[in-house]
């Protein structure tokens, strides 16, 4: 039983990482009805930037916000340069472009930092703390705290500030917002920047666990897809809850199902397929109504 709770707690920690990336996906989906296949690679690139910053002797806690700002600017730049010219193209065109972007960023990271896996410093100590007989590592607690904080900040930004309100308005009713004087296109860019920054958090949290290399996010993005689909792809809250469920499930399944080993990733695929077949709108999504 003790082992079970320990697994649940570390599952929540991984779930927080999935939730951050899933939230990034949801932000972009809400802004333009598109799944950004490059989200994971963008996060990976940001993590490499953080790695380089730390490598220059900067402390992790300064490198962290600096990376977030860089990721934010980078996200806006990507939207302006690559996505904006094709904003009105069919969704398949956009999907292929984000895939191209993913391949490009992956290759660029390989070009700059090579494909040799590197260890990424963890800001938290590897010690454990006992709470009621359950031993929890500070790393897990730290990851939970950081992801929780980021999710809270995003929530407050979207729900409690004028910018957040404008962003949501631009996503829901572009024409009406434009009539009211909202710079819709820039709001979309802002959404990309925000998503990129939130994704970067997941990258920096996962890098100490996995090793940092250009393909690091390839498995994480699958879990994030699973989380976003499970929660309902247009629901930010759903992404967070979906992420936690996926994190805990994968962690438990990896331990309790014999010989699971590298099949853990298949659970992600399994969740995606099951949800899409049984409940395509996810837990918190609205049913899609199509006018014909």
């Amino acid at each position, binding site marked *: 039983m003790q082992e079970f709770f320990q697994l649940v707690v570390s599952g929540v920690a991984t779930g927080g990482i999935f939730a951050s990336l899933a939230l990034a996906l949801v932000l972009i989906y809400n802004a333009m009805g598109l799944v950004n296949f490059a989200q994971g690679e963008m996060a990976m690139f940001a993590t490499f930037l953080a790695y380089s910053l730390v490598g220059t002797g900067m402390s992790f806690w300064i490198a962290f916000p600096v990376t977030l700002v860089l990721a934010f600017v980078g996200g806006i730049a990507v939207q302006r340069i690559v996505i904006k010219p*094709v904003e009105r*193209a069919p*969704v398949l065109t956009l999907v*292929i472009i984000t895939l*191209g972007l993913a391949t*490009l960023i992956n*290759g660029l990271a390989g070009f700059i930092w090579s494909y040799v896996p590197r260890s990424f410093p963890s800001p938290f100590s590897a010690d454990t703390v006992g709470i009621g007989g359950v031993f929890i590592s500070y790393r897990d607690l730290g990851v939970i705290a950081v992801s929780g904080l980021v999710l809270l900040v995003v929530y407050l930004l979207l729900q409690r500030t004028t910018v957040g309100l404008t962003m949501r308005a631009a996503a829901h009713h572009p024409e009406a917002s434009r009539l009211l004087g909202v710079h819709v296109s820039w709001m979309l860019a802002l959404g990309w920047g925000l998503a990129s920054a939130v994704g970067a958090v997941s990258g920096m949290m996962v890098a100490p666990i996995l090793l940092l290399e250009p393909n690091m996010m390839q498995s994480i993005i699958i879990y994030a897809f699973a989380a976003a689909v499970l929660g309902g792809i247009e629901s930010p809250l759903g992404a967070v809850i979906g992420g936690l469920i996926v994190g805990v499930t994968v962690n438990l399944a990896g331990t309790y199902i014999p010989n699971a080993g590298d099949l853990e990733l298949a659970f992600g*695929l399994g969740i*995606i397929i099951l949800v899409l077949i049984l409940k395509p709108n996810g837990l918190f999504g609205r049913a899609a109504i199509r006018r014909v």
Partner: protein
Amino acid sequence: MNRIRTAPPRYWLVGLVVVLFVGLPTVISSFLASEWGQALVLAIAIMGLNILVGYSGQLSLGHGAFMALGAYISAILVHRYRLDFLLTIPIAAVATGLVGFLFGVPALRLSPLYLALATFALAVVSPSLIKRPADLTGGVQGILVPQPDAPPFASDAFNAVTGTAMTSDQWIYYVILFCTLLLFWLAWNLGRHRPGRAMRAIRDAEVAAATSGINVAGYKTLAFAISAFYAGTAGSLLALSTGFVSPDAFPVSLSIQLLVGAVIGGLASIPGPLLGAIFAFFLPIESNQWVPSQTWIPDQITATVKNAGPAVSYGVVLILVMMFAPNGIVGLVKAGYVVLNRRLRGAADRETGQVPPDPQTV
């Protein structure tokens, strides 16, 4: 005779291309023949993807997984049951087609975006799924597939032309070429007859197609099945050509490579997949040979370019093509032909002959 004389020029072009590909191994080395064979394998798989994406408008990012299935079916049949490899090709193709059909049924319910997502996940997961039944698939090591020798009739004919003995690589090239021609001919017929028209109608306006009496669900699953059939054939031929199957031969990047080829060549066209395959296959190989040959580039950069080069160039090419030429090479050539024609016909025609732009397929 008369039919031949009055055939439109593009039929002559097709004939020329076929003769070129048949004659190719007699002038290039056995190793290059094997490379060109693999490019043709890619062309078959891309044609399958083209039928799915270009004609029926469903996006699959997991065709590498279907190729893997075809390859492993063939390899296991040869390795365990000692079947003749040539016999296993149709078996692998049909079996993969059936799996594609089964995959196409749930795919019906999904929006294109979700389908892309699910198939992408499939592509990422498939290498670890293959490793699992290690007894059957040989785990990480994979399975060796013995390459067949050329049969006497082919060997004699080849010897008569070139004066050298036919290597098994050259024989395999001809097997692949035969399959490519057959499958391209099938795709061409499919595209211009009832199923092709139905699929395009579904792609462009699903509701309108349904009200015109087209069985939308039926044709969408059919497209999936045919597409998987092509991918299975390609996988089987790839196993034959490389003489080896392993989980790492079918990474996500293979699925991306297929998509790159389909998009570059031009979707919903017959020559597109061939052109796209040649491009997608030789781009990394050529750039890997060109960069080290340039002595002014430092060694460290050469090493990283070898690793990262294909990814970067694929990414850039995908983005640029989708931005500026969504109909690929074929679309560009067609547009150029239209412009040229209009120029040649003169000013009077130019005013009246407003040619509508090609509809964007993706």
